[in-house]
């Protein structure tokens, strides 16, 4: 791979990791509901990237450091998605601005994942192993009986909560969930943690009211035995087998209250089923344009705290919403770009395909060459 004089090695590493994900997606292994992330990235990158850079600069001007900015964005997986944005054409931004934005994005991701910011080891390690061991020794863990009743309930709670988050975020954008680990507990168990948050974005979704979803956060800490779990930088999870038979201990926290027994876990599952049923009923009949509009609204919603700090209105500008009405032309362009990327990879080994796409991103960022 040509890496060009003056290319930042950390930017090359970041785009190698992003390209690995693109290759996996193009070969049908990554989720793409309700449309490919590439389609929407091209659609909003031109205006939203400028917004992000502006917000970042505004916070820096007010003295906010990397750690404080990182905490405003909840977790590393949502921020990792910005790398996609930066790999697409920017309009009205200098190369210096783009490189600054990418470097700051990597700084933020590295704040959360100190040792492996791009999950190249297939682990999303936000806690240290020591933190994980301390969490695993807290009181409040439930132990599934051999019949697996509780394990099945936990699997179902996780599945439904994840679907709800995908619906809120319109795909895998990680504004309301972060799955991290696995952490080796050095007793034959590995710990895996699911954090669900921002569960009530009622400014964007009318169904997400306090009455409909009475909690804002849920954390599930799971200790597994005999199961290999891998996670990529965008939080996609690959387990070596079904999870339920391998679950040895679990702690469920709902807004900091521990779910104390299997009966209560069952009640929580029932609660979640009602929540997802109402959410799905709400979006039934949504057109692609409706979904695109929601994607845009959610992008701006993510910046609400930051823009309030800067004394700005966080709502999505009307001219940006209007773009959703012109979605057909954008869709045509994105379709062309995706087909182009796939065609370029035809016959390539996975390694060559990753190298090829990484080079495209780098050429775009550093040389201003447009492939899309």
């Amino acid at each position, binding site marked *: 791979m040509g890496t060009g004089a003056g290319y930042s090695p950390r930017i090359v590493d970041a785009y190698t990791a992003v390209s690995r994900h693109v290759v*996996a997606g193009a*070969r*049908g*292994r*990554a*989720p793409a*509901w*309700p449309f490919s992330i590439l389609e929407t990235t091209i659609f909003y990158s031109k205006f939203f990237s400028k917004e992000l850079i502006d917000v970042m600069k505004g916070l820096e001007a007010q003295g906010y450091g990397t750690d404080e900015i990182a905490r405003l964005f909840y977790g590393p997986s949502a921020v990792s998605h910005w790398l996609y944005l930066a790999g697409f054409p920017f309009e009205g931004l200098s190369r210096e601005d783009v490189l600054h934005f990418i470097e700051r994005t990597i700084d933020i991701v590295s704040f959360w994942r100190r040792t492996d910011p791009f999950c190249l080891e297939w682990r999303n390690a936000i806690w240290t192993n020591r933190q994980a061991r301390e969490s695993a020794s807290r009181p409040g863990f439930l132990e599934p009986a051999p019949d*697996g009743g509780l*394990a*099945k309930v936990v*699997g*179902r709670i*996780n*599945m*439904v909560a*994840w*679907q*709800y988050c*995908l*619906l809120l975020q319109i795909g895998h954008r990680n504004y309301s969930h972060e799955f991290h680990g696995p952490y080796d507990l050095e007793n034959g168990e590995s710990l895996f943690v699911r954090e669900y948050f921002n569960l009530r974005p009622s400014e964007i979704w009318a169904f997400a009211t306090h009455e409909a979803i009475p909690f804002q956060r849920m954390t599930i800490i799971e200790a597994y035995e005999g199961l290999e779990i891998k996670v990529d930088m965008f939080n*996609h*999870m*690959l*387990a070596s*087998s*079904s*999870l*339920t*038979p391998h679950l040895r201990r679990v702690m469920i926290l709902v807004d900091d209250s521990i779910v104390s027994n299997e009966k209560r876990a069952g009640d929580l599952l029932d609660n979640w*089923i009602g929540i*997802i*049923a109402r959410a*799905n009923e709400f*979006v*039934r009949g949504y057109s692609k344009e409706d979904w695109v509009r929601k994607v845009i609204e959610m992008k701006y919603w993510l910046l609400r705290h930051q823009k309030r700090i800067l004394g700005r209105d966080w709502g999505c500008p009307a001219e940006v919403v209007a773009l959703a009405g012109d979605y057909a032309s954008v869709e045509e362009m994105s379709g062309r770009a995706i087909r182009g990327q796939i065609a370029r990879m035809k016959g390539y080994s996975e390694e060559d395909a990753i190298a090829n796409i990484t080079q495209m991103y780098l050429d775009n960022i550093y040389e201003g060459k447009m492939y899309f």
Partner: protein
Amino acid sequence: MAEKIIVKGVPASPGRVRGRVKVLRGPADVDKMREGDVLVAAETTPEYTLGILRAAAIVTDHGGILSHPAIVAREIGVPGVVGTGNATELLRDDMEVTVDGDRGWVLT
């Protein structure tokens, strides 16, 4: 009678189960699913959640081991076969089939 393979795909979640096929062609079809049915679809989405909860197995046309149906099948511990290419064409509502998630097969 010997079992016959009718659909082959990517083994996505282990286990073997027999059930009645329901082919879902959109979110509105989720209501067809009964407890213990085999969910068959081009792909699964969050809009299929209530159907997934009733499924004894999941079979899809698209996807690989990191796809949505593969992840949800492993999560809830039911057999999963993905990336079959043609399950929604070859399987029909109410067919009795066996899903072998270890081998990636759907059998008569």
